[in-house]
């Protein structure tokens, strides 16, 4: 037996059988109805009111032959005998006879409705035999005031047509059909709208859910804005569904008489199912992450993916690396060299050999070469993939890249830590030497003091303030602390970026305001008079510079200098405040930032004293001018011989500071800082030793 598609069970259709039987029946019925309607049309096709009844009768008789009066002695419907009183009436549609009681009437409007409707349906159905006979108002010409002479006995039907019950029944049925065809109840209209909305939801919701799921997983396939737009759209449709179903629910409630209970039940059920629909689908709509959440999610996902892939890719990566090393070894090495030279570029006279990638890292660069190389390769791959528009590849590559970079960074820090350890060991050896140096340094310091005090009072005041060297060391190292802490907690400080950078230097409370943010805010200031920047920029020159500048430039920018004294006073209370200043100063230095592509702040820091003091060639160096103004420093700048002692002195000072700070840090138990600082110290000592070796 046949099986319906979709069911696995037997079925049997009787439809063709049914249709065959029905067709036979329907043909008969349809012919019957059509016949009546054609006759009706003929009967109404002339102006009944203005036609004589005799003429009307003639027409009527021509439409359908009337049954002979004699043949029907009794009313076929009610069985009453016809007599003078009970007169015979003819159905104008079929010609049959009935009594008056059984007679029905068809009003002209009804007749018109029936005929016009059938004309429409006929014309649409194109049945040629019946369509031509339908000219309306063919007799319209005979509009006249000819009063109709109605016969006494036969009442004239001006506006209606007599017929038998059977014909009327048939016609009424037909009318009902026409009505139903044309009439669509309100509920249907509303319901259709409702279904449209539901379909829309069915279309959009899965799309949205896909998006939301992807976004919630931290993927970047879809954009957050698009998804939230879609969400709003879908929710609007839900609101519409809610409103429509509510409208359906209340449909006809205020009518009189109230609608049939089953109608009400239908309305309630529709409302109920709409509510179910909304519940089920709306609540299935997961919420979207906010932007911040999304960023976090993205990060999380990346990390996860990294972790996952790290294992998978390890093997592949290594083999790939080896291959690529061979292939692009030359090119990348060249690139590497370029980078190195670029880095060295701005400071060609620098003598310090840091441990950092630039100089000290020279040896390391070979170790980390494969990693860097890989990073290079991947960036170029990403570029290519982007050009090719393969976004998924880009994504995986970017993940790869990130992973590599992380690894690289980690390697760097590890190396740094290791180095610092070694340096700490060396420290002891150099202590003696340092002691000597320190004494010399003190001497020089005193000398400097004398010179400075000769120059200006303010300066001397400054020095008096700072005077004892114990104070200085406790201040300077803080810069390193700041860096050290920055290294550890870089994302934290940026959140507390100062609002007023110029004033910030005087506010002791904002200790940890982060360097990047401050730097950004400071940057515009770098275009301000350089005198202004001078003091805040260079921590070492500050004491020296600020005072002469106050003299030299009679109207110094308010914030930087005028507040300086108070700032200094505060500094004494709160050593941390200075770190702030230092950070800001360093970060705000427009030269340091571009000069130091490496994220490690130490390189910047290392460059300060040397670059600034020993490299007047650096274009636009803000210290150039101040140093020129400062007679003391002019001196030092003028000759290389003079340069060295100062440098040495400063170095020693720095070393002292750092030592003090290490002590401080040790006491506070901040071991990581200690490590970092000892590195610094070692480096400085190294520089010092070199210089000594060179000069002495």
């Amino acid at each position, binding site marked *: 037996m046949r099986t319906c598609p979709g069911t*696995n069970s037997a079925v*049997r259709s009787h*439809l063709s059988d049914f249709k065959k039987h029905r067709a036979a029946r*329907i043909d008969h019925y349809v012919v019957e109805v059509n016949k009546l309607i054609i006759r009706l049309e003929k009967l109404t096709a002339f102006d009944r009111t203005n036609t004589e009844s005799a003429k009307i009768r003639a027409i009527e008789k021509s439409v359908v032959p009337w049954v002979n009066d004699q043949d029907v002695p009794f009313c076929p419907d009610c069985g009453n005998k016809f007599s003078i009183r009970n007169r015979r009436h003819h159905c104008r549609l079929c010609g049959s006879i009935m009594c008056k009681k059984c007679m029905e009437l068809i009003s002209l409007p009804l007749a018109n409705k029936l005929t016009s409707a059938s004309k429409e349906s006929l014309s649409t159905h194109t049945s040629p035999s019946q369509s031509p006979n339908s000219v309306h108002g063919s007799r319209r010409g005979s509009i006249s005031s000819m009063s109709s002479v109605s016969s006494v006995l036969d009442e004239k039907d001006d506006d209606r047509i007599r017929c038998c019950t059977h014909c009327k029944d048939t016609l009424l049925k037909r009318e009902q*059909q026409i009505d139903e065809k044309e009439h669509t109840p309100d509920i249907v209209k509303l319901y259709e709208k409702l279904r449209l909305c539901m379909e829309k939801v069915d279309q959009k919701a899965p799309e949205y859910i896909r998006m939301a799921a992807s976004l919630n997983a931290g993927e970047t396939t879809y954009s957050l804005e698009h998804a939230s737009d879609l969400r709003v759209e879908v929710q609007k449709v839900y609101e519409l569904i809610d409103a429509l179903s509510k409208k359906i629910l209340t449909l006809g409630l205020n009518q009189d008489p109230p609608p049939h209970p089953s109608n009400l039940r239908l309305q309630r059920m529709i409302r109920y199912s709409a509510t179910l629909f909304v519940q089920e689908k709306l609540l299935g709509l997961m919420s979207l992450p906010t932007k911040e959440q999304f960023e976090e999610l993205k990060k999380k996902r990346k990390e996860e993916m990294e972790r996952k892939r790290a294992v998978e890719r390890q093997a592949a990566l290594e083999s790939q690396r080896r291959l690529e090393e061979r292939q692009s070894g030359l090119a990348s090495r060249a690139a590497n060299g370029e980078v190195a030279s670029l880095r060295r570029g701005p400071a060609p006279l620098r003598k310090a050999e840091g441990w950092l990638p630039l100089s000290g890292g020279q040896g390391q660069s070979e170790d980390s070469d494969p990693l860097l190389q890989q990073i290079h390769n991947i960036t170029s791959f990403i570029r290519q993939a982007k050009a090719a528009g393969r976004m998924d590849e880009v994504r995986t590559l970017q993940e790869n890249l990130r992973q590599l970079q992380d690894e690289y960074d980690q390697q760097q820090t590890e190396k740094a830590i290791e180095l610092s350890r070694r340096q700490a060991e060396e420290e002891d050896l150099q202590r003696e030497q340092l002691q000597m140096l320190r004494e010399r340094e003190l001497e020089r310091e005193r000398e400097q003091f004398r010179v400075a005090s000769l120059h200006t009072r303010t300066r001397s005041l400054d020095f008096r303030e700072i005077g004892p060297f114990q104070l200085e060391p406790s201040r300077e190292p803080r810069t390193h602390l700041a860096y050290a802490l920055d290294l550890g907690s870089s994302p934290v400080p940026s959140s507390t970026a100062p609002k007023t950078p110029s004033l910030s230097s005087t506010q002791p409370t904002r200790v940890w305001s982060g360097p990047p943010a401050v730097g950004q805010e400071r940057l515009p200031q770098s275009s301000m008079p350089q005198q202004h920047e001078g003091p805040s920029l260079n921590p070492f020159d500050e004491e020296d510079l600020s005072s002469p500048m106050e003299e030299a430039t009679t109207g110094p920018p308010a914030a930087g200098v005028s507040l300086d004294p108070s700032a200094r006073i505060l500094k004494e209370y709160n050593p941390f405040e200075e770190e702030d200043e230092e950070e800001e100063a360093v970060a705000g230095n427009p030269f340091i930032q571009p000069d130091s592509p490496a994220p490690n702040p130490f390189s910047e820091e290392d460059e300060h004293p040397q670059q600034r003091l020993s490299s007047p060639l650096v274009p636009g160096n803000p210290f150039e001018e101040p140093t020129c103004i400062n007679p003391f420093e002019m001196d030092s700048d003028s000759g290389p011989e003079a340069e060295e002692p100062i440098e040495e002195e400063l170095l020693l000072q720095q070393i002292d500071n750092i030592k003090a700070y290490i002590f401080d840090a040790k006491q506070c138990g901040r071991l990581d800082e200690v490590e970092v600082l000892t590195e610094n110290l070692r480096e400085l000592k190294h520089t010092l030793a070199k210089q000594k070796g060179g000069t002495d």
Partner: protein
Amino acid sequence: MNVVFAVKQYISKMIEDSGPGMKVLLMDKETTGIVSMVYTQSEILQKEVYLFERIDSQNREIMKHLKAICFLRPTKENVDYIIQELRRPKYTIYFIYFSNVISKSDVKSLAEADEQEVVAEVQEFYGDYIAVNPHLFSLNILGCCQGRNWDPAQLSRTTQGLTALLLSLKKCPMIRYQLSSEAAKRLAECVKQVITKEYELFEFRRTEVPPLLLILDRCDDAITPLLNQWTYQAMVHELLGINNNRIDLSRVPGISKDLREVVLSAENDEFYANNMYLNFAEIGSNIKNLMEDFQKKKPKEQQKLESIADMKAFVENYPQFKKMSGTVSKHVTVVGELSRLVSERNLLEVSEVEQELACQNDHSSALQNIKRLLQNPKVTEFDAARLVMLYALHYERHSSNSLPGLMMDLRNKGVSEKYRKLVSAVVEYGGKRVRGSDLFSPKDAVAITKQFLKGLKGVENVYTQHQPFLHETLDHLIKGRLKENLYPYLGPSTLRDRPQDIIVFVIGGATYEEALTVYNLNRTTPGVRIVLGGTTVHNTKRDRVLLCCPDWSQTPGLKQTSQLGLPNCWDYWHEPPHPAKRWGFTVLARMVLIS
């Protein structure tokens, strides 16, 4: 071989065929039950079926904007109803489906009534049985026999139901029947007759091994329906009564209004689906887990309103939460009621003795236990009578049969005459004289050793040691060892291979214990699929054995339950509880919309 699926497919197909738009489902009394077993109200609402009407209801309004799907049994009355309907159609278009074979003349008279051309479809969809479980069906016929012979009307209904099942599963089976039962033979012949007559319908693609229809008679195993059951579904049916997946809890003391009547449907209730075949103790622990799970997920009241986010979370969890809370309270109530009844009626003890009576042959200890229980005032008169019935069946021919003594005890206990009469009725119905095979004593060497071993090892669970006789029958059938002299084939051809698809039909009704057996056999025997059916699904009260008793219908307390088999009310006619009102839904929903 999934009867629920088969019927559901039919219904889905009907709805699907009618296309989009508002629909009304026109049914008769029986098809209402058939549909309600496989579709829930909300499920069917989603398919735009909003109204459910009975074809025989007189005050249906003309609603020309609705499509009508008629799912009717092809009875004379229904055909008349639909002819009237078509003469004055109330709906815009009609899709007519008959649940069984309809005669050509009926089709013709329908066609002639359809003057307005409102009928779009006339089909036979053979969903003419109640699908209880995927492998269990029922015809909801009570008292199908008069004495030992068929009531002709019921025979024809049973034949229709069985052939519809075969058609819906697309099986043209070989037929075996229980020789000892005249009714089984008659039914087998009737089914065969239909298959021959409608050979066109039964032309399915031949499978390698033809399916098998085995027709049994309840009288061969009158014991099984007399035992108390301990698996969830069987127990609920035994103690509370399942009627088209519905349980009437209105007599539970202190029941809340919502739980007066609950639906247990494996289709929609995961917990029930997972636990319906587990025994009572396991259900207890599972219910506990369900509770704990629920408590975890249940939002704390004060927490709930603390913030909009909390409320949103609540709303987002709402469907699961609501479903879960419904499930929890339902099952807790049902299980609670079960355990209350168990302790109230001392059922554990009763069941132990029942099992002993059914499974062991120790006459004196059995007798002792019965006598002891008869003294216990907690044991209801019905349970007491049942024990005696079991005794009477088992030790009918025992040399030291002391049935008269027990009957005296019953009378002394105050058990009413009606119940006492049942004992003799049972013996007459399912006694040794009637049975084709021996229920109690092992027949061959293997069985003897088995029983011996069982005695040695002891039984795992005293309450579930009874294996329905059907298990053995089916086991033999699968292994090809079912004796042909007891279960002959109808017609000359016999099955050589191991049967694969087996349809078992029990005249007089199947039991949930047997359903469990079939379920387990299906699970454990690869390549064999069994469907069990009966004229009804029994519990003891409804046992047709008892219905044979002329006084039965006059037993006041039991009359009610005996008529439960007829689906005289269906949830579809009830108004759905308005979810918005219940949960303050609209407010919450709006909040979600705004945010």
